[in-house]
């Protein structure tokens, strides 16, 4: 984000400076002959060595490296789809978006936003026309801390190797279900395969736990989710 902003500033500045920059160019053209005569006059061999110095320089630009200039790829944005088993309401498709921030090689923070729709309970199916819920949307968001427990490599063929990681996550969030909000604890594990420099495939298994009373008793419901996530580093 910031680097894009910087590029914008640089381009603007370049446009602004383009016209005045031509002035020193003209001045440089004037200076060149004077430089040549100076070189002819000075027959000192040491001077010549200094003049030749650029020739033996490696082919690199004389631009100072500052760590702030090097692109960072600590963020990972993704879309996921999978199955969510909503307790008492069947297993249903779920999809959503994710954003990860990698703090260190071990630790990351993950935010997720997901959407699913509850199916019918067996009571509703057998009851003939009875509906328990008006609002069947299941929307959740959560933030979790992740830990890369088992980083490694997967050898797909003799010459194809992908970096992988088995990670654990635990966090908290909110679930909006049946018209109410529920404070939700989320925990699980995932397996990531970094397919190239810029994208990775994740397989995630999570449990969303919250206290609910819509079936007539207070209980902790466990909502298990299995999903595939495609993420992009930026």
């Amino acid at each position, binding site marked *: 984000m910031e680097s894009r902003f910087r590029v914008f500033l640089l381009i603007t500045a*370049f446009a602004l400076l383009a016209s005045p920059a031509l002035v020193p160019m003209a001045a440089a053209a004037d200076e060149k002959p004077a430089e040549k005569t100076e070189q002819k006059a000075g027959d000192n061999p040491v001077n010549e060595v200094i003049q030749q110095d650029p020739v033996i320089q490696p082919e690199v630009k004389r631009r100072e*490296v500052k760590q702030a200039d090097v692109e960072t790829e600590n963020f990972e944005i993704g879309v996921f789809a999978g199955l969510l088993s909503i307790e008492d309401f069947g297993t249903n498709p779920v999809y959503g978006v994710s954003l990860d921030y990698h*703090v260190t090689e071990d630790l990351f923070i993950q935010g997720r936003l997901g959407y699913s729709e509850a199916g019918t309970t067996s009571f509703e199916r057998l009851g003939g026309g009875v509906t328990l819920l008006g609002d069947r949307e299941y929307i959740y968001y959560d933030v979790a801390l992740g830990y890369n427990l088992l980083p490694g490599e997967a050898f797909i063929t003799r010459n194809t190797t992908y970096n992988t990681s088995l990670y654990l996550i635990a966090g908290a969030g909110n679930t909006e279900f049946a018209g109410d909000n529920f404070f939700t604890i989320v925990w699980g594990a995932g397996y990531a395969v970094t397919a190239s420099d810029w994208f990775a495939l994740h397989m995630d298994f999570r449990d969303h736990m919250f206290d609910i009373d819509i079936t007539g008793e207070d209980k902790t419901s466990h909502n298990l989710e299995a999903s595939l996530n495609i993420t992009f580093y930026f």
Partner: protein
Amino acid sequence: MRKCFISLFLLVSSLSVSPLSNADEPEEHFVKVADPYIEMHTGAGRGYPIFYVAARGEWVQLLYRKTDWFRVKTEDGKEGWVSAAQLSMTLNPSGQRVDIRDPNEKDFVVRDWEYGASIGDFEGLSVISFYGGYHFTENISNEIIISQASGTVSSKTVLSLLNIIHEPFPEWKVSPFFTLGTGWIRTEPKSTLAVTRDRTDQYANYGLGVRMHITKRFLLRVEYKNYVIFTSRDDNEEIAEWKAGFGFFF
């Protein structure tokens, strides 16, 4: 923002030296190995095998960074991951040591932006909250906070756009802070209970807490807040909130 101005300044100075330099050209960062060698790993992690070493005097290109690791390309096209610690011993084209280091306590003190999430207790309800803050000075900052609290009777959504934080000793390892804020709180009764109306009230709060820099851009914070809710009834409602969470800064 400051970095933007620095790069703008660098651009101005480079333009006056070489007016023909092209701003659209992608930046290339070359450094020279000064240690006896640097180790190139197959992945961005300490356990990944070393498959190549670049010897002293070789020029390598820095492509991009992922946490503590740099993707590096050698002159003969080999690409691998080198730890930031090893690259801090490399040299710039001018022979100066490359400025590679991690964000530390000093950067934490002068941070501009801070984001985070926390969980806790909101007068018997479980609460999750997200915040983003901007530091005007080392001591004064403002935070925008959105919280969702839910329990068996009702759920509450809290939004605050004005939450001034004063941090008297930002350089302390565990740094205390005081807050004063205002916002809106929306209360929705549970749908399984008898139907009562949703309501939105304004509130004011004061609070105190501590922040602690853990590593790199990562911090922990714990805070207490006392809310006074200006209800439409005769008396105001008071709510105490405890939260603990993490954040990161830029």
